């Protein structure tokens, strides 16, 4: 459920960048204060492990589809929330840059959806509680499965929210949400199951590793930040759901009406935007303003547009090769 750059508007991307950057800075500050470098290597290697393990795709019997280990929860179990969050930041950044999974602008959204929820919400409030209540491997199993589902559902909900706020989809929100939540419920169950099996395996071999991270108490500062963001997320989500349900086919029109999404500044209708286009087109070249506005006019625009595009791109290509040659000669 990586948000792609093409799916977010600058405003949405910007807001979540700020939020994620704040959480990252806070987590780092808390870790720096605790001055415990004991888990540095573990952080790096486990992040690499999550990466590598996502390359093992388990086939799910009877469905023909496949799943893999989920990242955030597994990391939290071994590292605690702050370190897990930072590891997720590194993983998501690498995915965005090297695998085109996500993107530069959408990175903030992805960190929030896939880092914040599993590490700071699902792990402490679901996994820990459940695995403390229920003894032994059963507790780990149910804790991991339920926390994983919850984390993914929350993330998926925010994917819907971010997409809608960005004004990308025309899919009625209710349907979009239902679709996303159902799909991610299923994915969460599979990921949770795989995560649980791996953790139980390790637990059976080295019980010490897990209890260690559990007793690590969390810092007040971090708790406050998490509480604030959880509250904000809850409020945004609540408001959003309210609008989603009150305007079954309205999607972002309604949001635009209420919140006034500023980034969609261009006119809505195509004829309108064409006239704006024509206007822009003729303003710098007044000679053309007296051309008759026939149907062929649009064709003319298109031809001009295509020719212009090709020329611009050809120049770019030529310049690139020219500079490469020149650079090579130096």
């Amino acid at each position, binding site marked *: 459920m990586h948000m792609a750059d093409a799916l977010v508007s600058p405003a949405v991307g910007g807001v979540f960048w700020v939020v994620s950057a704040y959480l990252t800075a806070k987590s780092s500050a808390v870790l720096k204060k605790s001055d415990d470098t004991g888990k*540095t290597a573990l952080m790096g290697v486990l992040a690499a492990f999550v*990466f590598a393990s996502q390359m093992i795709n388990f086939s799910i019997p009877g469905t023909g589809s496949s799943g893999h280990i989920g990242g955030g929860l597994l990391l939290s179990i071994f590292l605690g929330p702050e370190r897990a969050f930072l590891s997720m930041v590194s993983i998501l950044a690498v995915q965005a840059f090297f695998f085109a999974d996500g993107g530069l602008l959408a990175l903030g959204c992805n960190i929030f959806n896939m880092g914040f929820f599993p590490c700071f919400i699902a792990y402490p409030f679901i996994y820990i509680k459940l695995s403390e209540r229920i003894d032994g491997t059963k507790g780990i199993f149910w804790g991991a499965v339920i926390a994983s589902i919850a984390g993914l559902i929350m993330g998926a909900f925010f994917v819907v929210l971010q997409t809608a706020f960005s004004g990308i989809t025309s899919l009625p929100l209710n349907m979009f949400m239902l679709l996303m939540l159902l799909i991610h419920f299923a994915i969460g169950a599979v990921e949770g199951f795989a995560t649980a099996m791996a953790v139980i395996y390790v637990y059976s071999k080295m019980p010490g590793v897990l209890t260690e991270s559990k007793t690590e108490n969390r810092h007040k500062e971090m708790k406050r930040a998490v509480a604030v963001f959880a509250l904000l997320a809850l409020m945004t989500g609540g408001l959003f759901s309210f609008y989603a349900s009150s305007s079954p086919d309205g999607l972002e029109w309604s949001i635009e009406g209420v919140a006034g999404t500023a980034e969609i500044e261009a006119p809505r209708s195509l004829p309108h935007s064409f006239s704006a286009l024509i206007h822009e087109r003729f303003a710098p070249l007044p000679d053309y303003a007296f051309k008759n506005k026939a149907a062929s006019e649009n064709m003319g625009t298109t031809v001009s547009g295509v020719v212009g595009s090709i020329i611009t791109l050809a120049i*770019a290509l030529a310049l690139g090769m020219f500079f490469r040659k020149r650079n090579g000669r130096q």
Partner: protein
Amino acid sequence: MRLKDLYRTEIYDESRGPFFSPLVLLAVTFVYTVAVVSFDRYQTFRMLPLAAYPIFIGSFARVSGRDIFRKMLTVLPFVIFIGIWNPFFDTTRTEYLGIMISMGWISFFSLILKFLLIVPATLIMVAATGFDGLCRTAASLGLPDVLVTQFFLLQRYIRLLAEETHNIVRARVFRGGKITVANAGNICGPLLLRCLSRSERIHSALMCRGFGGQLYHKHRRENRISVHDLIFVLTWVLFFSMVRIFDMPVLIGDLIVGCVF
């Protein structure tokens, strides 16, 4: 996400062009991305000239197009999943390029175009800077030490573990084994255990060499931005704003068409 992508690509590690500093490329790519997504959902051809940027950098840094194409294919489905509903729900019809189609198709086309513009640009930027170039940029941007260390360790061990994982999977499949969720524990578990003990050894190796929380000591010269770089940034930002404000394709096209005919 394919395992082979990680180590077959030349993207992985080598920084190719010392010509551009990674920081500069990162900044321009960011502005570029914002410029692309700032076009509204019914814009199509107007943003096309922006492709000049990835084409310029790509031809400059000699990035393999096939590689980028393959990566794009793996992530395209999610974008299509989000966008494909538009034609069904946004059915206002309008004239476009001389044909009548629904606005939904236009916005879908616009979305795909944005995707096609942004993804190669990011991948090309990475290819031109390299993984360690990016890690160094991260360090010079003043990221917290914890995160910088994390990036460097991740860059170092991701490949190693990917190969280890690959071997485990191959060993299993070669002997006719199947990989299902049911044996997730038996495949990932040992790998995880090995990672835990490896991390302990790495930790003691770090300690032996006096690690105090800072893996990478950044150098002053990496922060320096040359006049070259500055011109590069300004030129592109100017270009992006021009494309954003004026209808460049039509402008240039008119000029040419007007001159020729």
